[in-house]
């Protein structure tokens, strides 16, 4: 009864940890899918003008729809639990990652591309040795924003479309009028969010140490 604890369930700490791990796992899976899909698509859209012209209208229509508005569809398509939650996290994290990657690719300095050409680079080498690394800071910013939004989407998704996880837990204790446990769940959401953000920032600083100090 770790996942849906009743009043006579497991000890409180185990329940809190269990739900935290469930939520964390969901967000990591959803975020990983969003990172891979967002970066790949973003590189393609940001590098080739015609791909951008083709896909931009679709993206610009889908993007303003808040992930939470997808909850009914997510439940219809995927039922309850892991899959709809992952889907909603993906939705939330995907767009900031995509747009920041596009922005980064598009703002590849023309000079660097020219220098690479005069040094003998072919088009593939220009993409992977100039475009992608020069977009890296922007991509990392997208990942940081993405994981934050993904985490919020997850908690919101669990409030309605789930029977486990931190979101579900705070809603459950709201219905049993146990405010302390609801607050404990909220605090856990805050702490985990902060830790994920900090970890990503550390990775970013490590990868992008070459950036010009502000």
């Amino acid at each position: 009864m770790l996942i849906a604890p009743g009043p006579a369930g497991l000890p409180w700490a185990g329940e809190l940890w269990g739900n935290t791990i469930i939520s964390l796992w969901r967000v990591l899976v959803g975020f990983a899918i969003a990172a891979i899909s967002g970066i790949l698509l973003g590189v393609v859209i940001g590098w080739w003008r015609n791909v951008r012209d083709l896909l931009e209208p679709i993206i610009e229509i889908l993007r303003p729809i808040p992930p939470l508005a997808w909850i009914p569809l997510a439940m219809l398509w995927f039922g309850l639990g892991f899959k709809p939650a992952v889907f909603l996290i993906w939705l939330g994290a995907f767009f900031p990652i995509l747009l920041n990657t596009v922005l980064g690719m598009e703002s590849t300095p023309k000079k660097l591309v020219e220098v690479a050409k005069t040094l003998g680079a072919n088009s593939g080498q220009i993409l992977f040795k100039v475009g992608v690394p020069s977009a890296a800071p922007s991509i990392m910013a997208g990942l940081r924003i993405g994981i934050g939004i993904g985490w919020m989407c997850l908690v919101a998704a669990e409030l309605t479309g789930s029977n486990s996880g931190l979101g579900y837990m705070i809603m459950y204790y709201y219905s049993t009028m146990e405010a302390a446990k609801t607050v404990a769940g909220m605090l856990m959401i805050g702490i985990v969010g902060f830790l994920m953000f900090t970890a990503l920032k550390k990775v970013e600083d490590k990868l992008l140490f070459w950036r010009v100090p502000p």
Partner: protein
Amino acid sequence: MSKAKLTIEHISKSFSEKKGGKITHALQDFNLAVSPGEFVAIVGPSGCGKTTLLKIVAGLEVASEGEVYLDNNKVTGPGPERGLVFQDFALFPWRDVTGNVVFGPELLNVPAAERIKIAEHYIRLVGLSGNERKYPAELSGGMKQRVAIARALANDPEVLLMDEPFGSLDAQTRSQMQKELLYIWQENRKAVLFVTHSVEEAVYLSNRIVVLTGSPGTIKQVFPIDLSYPRSRSDHGFISLREKITGCVSGNCR
């Protein structure tokens, strides 16, 4: 055909502006032959098409008319046999000094061990030994330009194209870099095409000076510089050439 290293024949370039369809002539009927090992400077006011010319030779821009030949082979696009050095360095900020210098050999699939040797050689040549692991953000302007020169040389190009390479450096660094460029040139004996707006710099460095006029850029006059190296800026011959060419740039050619 000719024995020139680089032949620029009847190059014209015009741009049509997006709005209104107005046509700007940047270059008109430019001709020049650069001999092997020769240092040619192109001077002229800003907007006279100097940079456009260099980009056409580099293959980054296509001429509206005319052809460029390297050893009698027609230039059709950018290539590693024509190294280009920009005014603003254009280093890859995510690569350290060595990483920047090996960029060209890396693209051409030179084996890793050999690449490192090449990098060491050129880093030493430009006087940056000991800075191999530094990133562009940690380097001064003069050091950055040295890296850019080493990077262009690492491909062992036939011709070195330099677009106001010292234009953004302070006066002291600039004159230091000019001395070092001469040293590098005398070591390597590459043909150099050097664009600058400083007549003094051109007289100090080159074998021949081409004066361009603005819009459209055409050759006004060509001055051979027969002074022996190293040159002294206070030398009488130096000063009189400098004055003569400065006069020509501003409209009084003799």
